[in-house]
């Protein structure tokens, strides 16, 4: 069921030998990059929390988690992958299946994606296509089915392309979210997804199971928010470390992740009491927003900011690969099946600040979220990060800039690609921006 044998509609037939060669060489390169990223993160904080060790291991996409999932699959569990955060992971958990997010952060595979779609297409999409072509991504390979939410143009067509290999369930997200008819429509999508997951896994999603899954999410959200709250004051954790913790949630076991994150927060609270800062408290505080940044290759911006001279620290982000993952709890009043499903629908639709939305006031929710965060986390500057081809984020920039200009918070539009070659240029820009943030006080 997981591997389709029918004729491929998009993908070229790549010889087995070439697939193996590319897979081996890119896997080896990727493991080096993972190790290098973690090394640099260790160097950035001489008193790096003990609890980070767990997340460093979890960060190895080819490591223990892959084996763990393989063992679960042996026992008959299904893996359900997804590309957008709108996929209702609680339904997956309630059906005793494993949710994993499968977007690719590998630079090298974006070039392989060029064999299928033009270079103008967003590199997150091209790279995911390339990763599938050479079977690079353990979690994508392990997925028995994929939930594709039709948010941007890239995601919509990516689902069709991956349909050459996998069972795809599309979810139609309404683009105008704050109307009753949209919520009703989306609620039906959620209910339909429940049926699909039940039929596919052969496991009925009972009231009790769904309640447990929602409670698992609640606990994770609590730990997640605790971590983000700890970033709001003087810095006790490097931005990169927190960002990695946030992102590992996408493939880790949810309960274990929650325990480990709580343990990390315990350590950070001690640090806070001892005023043991990871960098001087007057280090410019930066928020990142825009295109999602996926581990492991696409870690260049956080690395640049925190290794720059003058140095900056990322204390918040508005990314669907970051703080958006678990920011909002599912608000349940009564634990009836209907109420739980409605609450899930509301949480996934209304709380999202994805730029795929518009409304009477445009995507006002995102602007307000950013402005609130600026105040809460005492942000001094915002980096608006966009990869070329990422239209929705690129087009919302002007509005975000106007809103930030009003409250006198500088924002810099940084556009880049899935490549390592532009790190020098990016460094110049990032350092100029950080210099500007310090200069507003300094010279």
């Amino acid at each position, binding site marked *: 069921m997981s591997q389709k044998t029918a004729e491929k509609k998009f993908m070229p037939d790549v010889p087995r030998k070439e697939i193996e060669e590319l897979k081996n060489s890119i896997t080896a390169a990727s493991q080096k990059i993972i190790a290098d990223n973690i090394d640099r993160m260790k160097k950035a904080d001489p008193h790096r929390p003990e609890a980070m060790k767990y997340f460093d291991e979890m960060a190895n996409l080819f490591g223990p988690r892959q084996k763990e999932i393989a063992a679960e699959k042996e026992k008959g569990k299904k893996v359900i992958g997804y590309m957008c955060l709108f996929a209702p992971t609680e339904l997956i958990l309630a059906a005793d299946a494993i949710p994993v997010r499968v977007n690719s952060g590998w630079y090298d595979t974006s070039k392989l994606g060029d064999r299928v779609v033009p270079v103008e297409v967003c590199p997150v999409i091209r790279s995911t296509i390339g990763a599938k072509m050479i079977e690079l991504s353990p979690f994508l390979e392990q997925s028995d089915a994929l939930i594709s939410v039709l948010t941007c143009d890239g995601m919509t067509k990516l689902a069709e392309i991956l349909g050459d290999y996998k069972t795809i369930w599309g979810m139609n997200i309404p683009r105008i979210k704050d109307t009753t008819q949209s919520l009703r429509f989306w609620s039906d999508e959620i209910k339909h997804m429940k049926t699909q997951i039940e039929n596919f896994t052969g496991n009925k999603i009972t009231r009790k199971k769904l309640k447990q899954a929602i409670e698992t999410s609640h606990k994770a959200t609590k730990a997640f928010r605790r971590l983000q709250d700890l970033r709001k004051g003087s810095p006790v954790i490097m931005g990169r470390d927190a960002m990695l913790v946030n992102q590992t949630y996408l493939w880790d076991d949810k309960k274990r992740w929650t325990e480990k994150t709580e343990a990390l927060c315990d350590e950070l609270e001690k640090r806070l009491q001892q005023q043991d800062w990871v960098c001087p408290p007057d280090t410019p505080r930066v928020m990142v927003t825009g295109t999602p940044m996926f581990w492991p290759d696409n870690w260049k911006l956080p690395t640049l900011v925190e290794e720059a*001279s003058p140095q900056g620290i990322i204390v918040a982000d508005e990314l669907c690969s970051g703080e958006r993952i678990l920011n909002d709890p599912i608000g349940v009043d009564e634990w009836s099946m209907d109420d739980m499903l409605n609450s899930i629908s509301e949480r996934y639709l209304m709380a999202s600040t994805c730029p795929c939305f518009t409304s009477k006031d445009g995507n006002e929710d995102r602007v307000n979220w950013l402005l609130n965060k600026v105040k809460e986390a005492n942000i001094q500057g915002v980096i608006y990060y966009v990869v*070329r081809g990422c239209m929705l984020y690129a087009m919302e920039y*002007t509005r975000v800039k106007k809103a930030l200009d009003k409250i006198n918070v*500088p924002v*810099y*539009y*940084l*556009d*880049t*690609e899935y490549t390592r070659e*532009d790190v*020098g*240029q990016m460094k*110049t*820009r990032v*350092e*100029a*921006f950080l*210099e*500007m943030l310090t*200069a*507003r006080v300094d*010279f």
Partner: protein
Amino acid sequence: MITVGMDLGTQRVQVVIVKDGEVVARATVFSGFDPTKAAEQAVDEALKQANLKLSDINHFSSTGSAVDMAPYANSKVSMMGADAKAAVYLVPKARTIIDVGAEEARAVKCDEKGVMMDFVVNERCAAGAGAFIEAMARALEVKTEDMGPLALKAERASPINASCVIFGESDVVSLIHRQESKPEIARAVYDAMADRVSSMIHRLGINPEVVLVGGVAKDPGFVASLNRKLGLSVTIPEFPEYIGALGAALVAATRAKETSK
């Protein structure tokens, strides 16, 4: 107080020495393969001009794309920060600075003290920068320095696409095939560049007074096109190509004062 500013650019290294707020020497050396060595040479030359020794210098500051390869540097400053500092020193009313160099065009907004408040850079494309003129001059078989005067002779404009150097070049070739005159093609090149640069500036918002600096500020063809496009007359200071080095030297003076406190 004697300070040195070094601008390690993609094509040239420029050095400026400032003594008690006055420029006392300027020197340029081609960057070549070893920007560090080129900068050493340029510093050497500037010191000779001003009759100074290395040990007379209170503070060295560097800027430019190869900023981290600078010799002697006590500190560094971003190219945008240097632009703002130097432009306000030369033109006190300057609030928007447009800097067009060989590989990069950028615009900086600043306050009355020359502190940068916002900036924008043409990312990942040389079509709005000096290298574009060089490529187009090759296609027209004229010297780069003759392009500007040639463009001023044009009687009308013929649009080309400057989304990219490569596409721009093929557009120029089609103009050649249509047997457009050289002056008109040269003007088309500058108009296309000015288009790119001005839309970049409009995204930032223009605060008068606008100062144009960088190597391309010396090209009359580009200046004419940009003024037409922006509907204003940009101010061009003396020695616009030394703006980065001057800015670094001025920042160096501020930093030297801070450290001696």
